[in-house]
């Protein structure tokens, strides 16, 4: 179940950033702005968010949700 939710979330994130990259590339070409800067920045952001996402997922799996709260 967790892996399905994680996959969906990751796909949403990746999809959104890919759209951003596509949009920035398109606009840079359309307006002849200095080329590829937005694309490079977006690739860095995608890589960083993938790392953060992977760590978040790893931590989430490691949490023992059944004994999380200590009941006095």
């Amino acid at each position, binding site marked *: 179940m967790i892996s399905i939710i994680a996959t969906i979330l990751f796909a949403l994130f990746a999809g959104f*950033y890919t759209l951003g990259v596509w949009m*920035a590339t398109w606009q840079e070409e359309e*307006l002849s702005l200095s080329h590829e800067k*937005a694309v490079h920045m977006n690739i860095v952001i995608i890589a960083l968010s993938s790392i953060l996402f992977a760590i978040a997922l790893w*931590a989430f799996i490691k949490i023992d949700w059944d004994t*999380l*709260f200590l009941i006095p």
Partner: protein
Amino acid sequence: MTIHKHWFVFFTRMTALLSVGVVPLFGFLFAPELALVINPDSLWYLLLFFAMIWWLALLFIFFIEWLDYWLDAWIITDQRVIDIEQKSLFRREVSEFVIARIQDIKIETPGFIGTVLKFGNIRIQTAGEESFTIETVPHLNEIKNLIMSFAHRGAMTDPD
């Protein structure tokens, strides 16, 4: 010539974002107190999980802010000025006017930081009573002089 907003505009936004970025560290700071109510075996992972989610959200905001900064631009040619304003991720406004129609250019320096870092606003009045404002641009005088030189050249070659 393509002009973007001055880097200071982006810097101020990023400073705010960075200051919010330290919030999860407080969780680690108060870990001993939290360990009284949360299982210590899972506490570190829980804090790490929330820190990552927090930073993912901030990265998302950074992405949108950066795109907004980078794709907001003015293109000045010897014929016209094109103003591209990125409103949101997929929404933008592009307006342009012919340089020969320029009647008046005013530059404004907004205070101390603007004076030191040499940025400000350029307000352009055209013959159609319309006015365009280019906000927080660097090299104010150079840009003003460039537009004025194009306008004079345009006025001299204009048959009307």
